[in-house]
């Protein structure tokens, strides 16, 4: 015969379990402040990473004929994800994170007219380093559909 526990007791036990779980979490958590990109979570899924890489490919395709379009694609579809990628990478491979951020910065300068007008070359380099970064983050080796990246 199954004996039913009183509802109040069930609730009390459940509440105690939850409170203990919360307490364990809070007690075990370090006070470390995590970097917080404002509008992105600290982790990225493969789809987001692929989308950013794909946007870089598009930007590269556009850059020779339409700098404005290339800039728009870069800043709206790739830029934020590259920051989060670099942030994640900096925990495991700071030299590669540095290369990624430097290459990204170079592209920013080129696309906004600050650099020496070699945007295509800068994007090629960023594609190459992004590819290494994605592999380092556990993704399969990505490539642009119409060019060897």
């Amino acid at each position, binding site marked *: 015969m199954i004996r039913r526990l009183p509802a109040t007791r069930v609730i009390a036990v459940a*509440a105690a379990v939850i409170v203990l779980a*919360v307490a364990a979490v809070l007690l075990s958590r370090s006070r470390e402040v995590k970097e917080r990109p*404002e509008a992105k979570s600290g982790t990225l899924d493969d789809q987001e990473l692929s989308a950013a890489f794909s946007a870089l490919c598009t930007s590269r395709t556009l850059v020779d004929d339409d700098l404005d379009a290339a800039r728009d694609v870069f800043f709206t579809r790739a830029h934020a994800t590259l920051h989060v990628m670099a*942030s994640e990478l900096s925990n495991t491979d*700071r030299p590669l994170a540095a290369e990624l951020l*430097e290459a990204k910065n170079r592209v920013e300068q080129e696309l906004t007219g600050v650099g020496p007008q070699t945007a295509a070359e800068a994007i090629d380099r960023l594609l190459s380093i992004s590819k290494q970064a994605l592999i380092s983050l556990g993704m399969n080796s990505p490539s642009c559909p119409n060019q060897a990246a």
Partner: protein
Amino acid sequence: MNLHPAWSGRISAWLLLALVAVSCTSRDAAPEAQSPTPSRQELVAQVASYDLAVGKQRFMVGLLTPQQELVGGGSVSMKFVYLGTRERPQSSGPVVSEATGNFLAIPREGGSPPPLPVAGPRVVSSSEGSGVYAADATFDRAGFWGVLVEASVEERGPLPARATFEVLPEHEFPWIGEDAPRSENLTVDSTDAPKSAIDSRAQGATEVPDPELHSTTVAKSLADKRPVLLVVATPVYCVSRFCGPITDMVSELSKSYGNRANFVHIEVWRDFEKKELNRAAADWILTEKPSEPWIFLIGSDGKISARWDNVATRQEVEPALQALPAQ
């Protein structure tokens, strides 16, 4: 703006779920860095403030739809709930305070002008810019807190968002009213450091792009009784996305207000790869986890009179400069 009664009644359960969700999904993330997995009728809230402590300060939160679309424009309501301490966590609590958060539009990277203010809140495309909601919030005790945000999003109706975060007993980073560190920061005349330690953008053949921000030190400025607008940022190695635009903004402000204050940029990293901070940057941001970017306004008396963490707009900083006497 009020919470929907049905939702408001679930505050306790929500907060518990929020904390448990954080425990299940994050490795070492502080609770404020994550929002519980939202339902389809909820937004994702991400706290953008650094260094929240007991007292009054600016509180910032970014809002996204579950599809990662940015919500921007207009204003939102924020309700703050106390959730206890690490030692004595609370499963629920009453609303302690409320505030209205106004949208802070952030300049786009690459020197393009700030995005136009938008009505809203509404879903905005990334090409329209980005931003966060900011409110003056007062926290009366240290511990864990929850924020309950409600946004009346155009064409989608009222949508809630929730996040948890920690409020410290005291600020970890230099705070308003404290004596400013007399930093002997690098300048363009420094010969004992690589150029990139003066400004991370100065690499290879590239010169320091804004030498006007690297012409003097905080220590000398304060010895001369000059106010200082200081930006601590690393335009190249920034993980928050805002170092470049914010450093550019400070550079622009220096052109208009150079008669009222000295303007100084301290680059964060002497060597990013080796995780070596510049000594002057360490004066300001050496904590368990250095963060960037920061702007500090230091008065001629050597005390910090204002500070902005992570996000700062010209609309916020300029009035503080205008209040300084021309010299």
